[in-house]
């Protein structure tokens, strides 16, 4: 079996979904951790320092390429799988009761993922673009914290960000344990632990992310 055969097989595609999914999960820990520096409430001094390191250090910038590659692979593969899976049932049931045997969020990974993708595009346009322009134009006065403060003055943006976080929550709530099943880990002792870990992870990460725009909008953080 060649690599090409492996990665174009149904299970091979699942492996790349799970692998990139877990990679994105690791990234979110770093992302949530760094952004949580705003909660120090020091006018963003610490946060800006870390953000500057992340955007200027060459190791980080190299890893960023991997991050984008992983995200794009995950999103494109996910959307292709979604399309292919819909083709596997060309005629729909006239009457179906899927809620009798599975959870709505496990059946909605494609929709949740698409919402996430839209959110990520909005999010990048808010913060990534500005940071890059500053980096390449050599602008040393760029203040990411202030940019956050400005963006989060608009109530609509807060609502959109909260929608993004909610989509993320359900995507992670199913995706975390799903990735381990995809890797072939199903165990009497470890599977319940993995599920607990995934739930805890999804709750903590999403609470942190939700709190950031809210705290800024309500001026808890300055």
């Amino acid at each position: 079996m060649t690599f090409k055969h492996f990665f174009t097989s149904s299970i091979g595609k699942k492996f790349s979904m799970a692998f990139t999914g877990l990679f994105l999960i690791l990234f979110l820990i770093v992302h949530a951790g760094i952004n949580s520096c705003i909660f120090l409430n020091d006018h963003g001094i610490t946060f800006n320092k870390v953000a500057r390191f992340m955007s200027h250090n060459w190791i980080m910038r190299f890893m960023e390429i991997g991050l984008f590659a992983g995200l794009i692979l995950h999103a494109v593969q996910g959307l292709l799988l979604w399309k292919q899976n819909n083709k596997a049932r060309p005629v729909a049931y006239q009457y179906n009761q899927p809620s009798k045997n599975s959870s709505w969020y496990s059946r909605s990974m494609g929709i949740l993922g698409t919402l996430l993708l839209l959110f990520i595009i909005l999010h990048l346009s808010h913060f990534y673009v500005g940071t890059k322009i500053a980096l390449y134009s050599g602008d040393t006065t760029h203040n990411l914290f202030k940019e956050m403060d400005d963006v989060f003055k608009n109530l609509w943006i807060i609502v959109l960000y909260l929608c993004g976080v909610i989509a993320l929550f359900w995507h992670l709530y199913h995706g975390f344990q799903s990735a381990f099943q995809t890797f072939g880990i199903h165990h009497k002792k470890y599977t319940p632990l993995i599920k607990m870990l995934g739930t805890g992870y999804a709750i903590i990460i999403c609470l942190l992310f939700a709190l950031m725009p809210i705290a800024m909008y309500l001026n808890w953080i300055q």
Partner: protein
Amino acid sequence: MEHYHMNLTLKVWRQKNAKMKGNLETYKVKDISSEMSFLEMFDVLNEQLIIEGKEPIAFDHDCREGICGMCSMYINGQAHGPWQNNTTCQLHMRAFKDGDTIVVEPWRSSAFPVLKDLVVDRSSFDRIIQAGGYISVNTGNAVDANAMPIDKKDADNAFMAAACIGCGACVATCKNGSAMLFVGAKVSQLSLLPQGEPERESRVLNMVAQMDKEGFGNCTNTYACEAECPKGISIANIARLNSEFLIAGLSNEEN
């Protein structure tokens, strides 16, 4: 449980052949006993249709005791109807009450094309088995059962996987029309045992390749298959299929 009779409205999928489009037809049946099986109720309906000079409804069945896996009916939005761990032939009319409307459809999957009414072609499953769901041994005298020691745990797991009757409810239920539970069970039942060891690698690779060729969808771990499987086949078998495929696929040196 008390015995009772009921009048029912049935909406049944009628489709002349694989090419024609089908639709739901409405039928009424009267005085159905709560002791009848679902298929016996269909026999009553078909008798009625024959007397009326209409074409009886084609449906698959064989053993009528829950072991052959033929009785594929999607009943009120669930494979094999509302009872868990159950086939259509073992579904009894006491699951319904007087005045109920029951919708009956065939399995819907591009890999299980409808042949007529409720009958689908599940030979895609047979082709997956032909691709590797066997062990190659010389026939002859049966080997002494205890000649080859097998861990009790493995024997139990292989036995539980072997309970799969190939009914296709997992595919019919899965939103992706994925056959992973079936293939997982068939790979597990052999790969867990020493007799399955020589063909272990080629088995999983060939069976998955055939599964993909047949046009089944990709698993997204909704676990709906496990909930609807009449034999309670565990998704642990899908995990085992995944790891068998991962190891075989990445370690295999053939091009």
